[in-house]
């Protein structure tokens, strides 16, 4: 697999958990999520695809939406984590931490113990 394909796949796989992580402590609206991820270089290549992703997370029961009044302009659709979303995020965090540590160890030591 070409390196850029691999990076694209990894980024794509991790992105939805990064979205869950953004919603871990507070509800946010779509544009806010996009803006925050957009500030991190390389996380979001096409901002518009965030909305299909949010829709999928909601269909999967990981996030839910609620309308909230906005001080400026019309009400906004806020996304917040469900209990299932919290579980999914914890699960990913555990796996990711283990995986990252394993890869880091092998990359740095060449597998020597």
């Amino acid at each position, binding site marked *: 697999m070409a390196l850029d394909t691999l990076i694209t796949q990894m980024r794509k796989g991790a992105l939805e958990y990064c979205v869950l992580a953004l919603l871990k402590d507070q509800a946010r609206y*779509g*544009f806010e999520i*996009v803006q925050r991820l*957009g500030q991190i270089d390389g996380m979001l*290549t*096409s*901002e*518009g*695809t965030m*909305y*299909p*992703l*949010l*829709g999928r997370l909601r269909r999967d029961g990981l996030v839910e939406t609620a309308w909230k009044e906005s001080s*400026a*302009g*019309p009400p*906004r*659709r806020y996304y917040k984590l469900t209990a299932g979303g919290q579980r999914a995020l914890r699960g990913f965090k555990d796996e990711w931490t283990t995986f990252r540590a394993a890869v880091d160890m*092998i*990359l740095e030591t*060449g597998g020597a113990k």
Partner: protein
Amino acid sequence: MTAPRAEQIVAGYLARLEAALAPVPETRRVELLEEVREHIAEARAALPDETDADLLNILDRLGDPADVAAAEIGRADPAPAPARRASRGLEIAALILLLLFWPVGVVLLWMSDAWTTRDKLIGTLAPPGGYLGIFILGPALALGTFTTACRTISDDTGRVISSTCPSGLAQTGIDVGTGLLVVIYLIGPILSAAYLAVRLRHGPESSGTTHGESIPPGVPAVTAE
């Protein structure tokens, strides 16, 4: 920038997105379009002084409507190549029935996606009819053989007493021809079934696309650099 022109640009983008979202159920399509419209409105509101370039930049960052729609529809990931079916029930049934009950065998042959059209044509036409053909042609051949057979009667010492071949040379020619036909009809179906079985093992694409990614033994699959 004049406001009408900005509205036109946004409307154009949303129209392209709506068209690309045609396969999506209406409720969801309306919702998604609404979210993208809100996104554009929020991004524009955040600009101190909007220019043409600013607006185009917002839409550029949103991405091609086709990409956004693809993310919704699920075509963003190219569909993985269909896994080779572990079971070859249909194909095995086709091979057996091509021999034993050709009409059904040939239907199964064409139903299967494991052979190329060329292979299917070969399986259908060579030899036509499988052993069913023999049941139809067989009696005719047997009749022909019987009626033209030589009757040779020998005595105890092996001396020919009488031979009732109607006409010697022509008779031999017919017998050889009949024999060949019988051989072709007996062996032909087996040969064509064997050919199809071999083609089945190689798969429809024998050009080796499935072998392209195989890793030679002894080479580590991951080379950490």
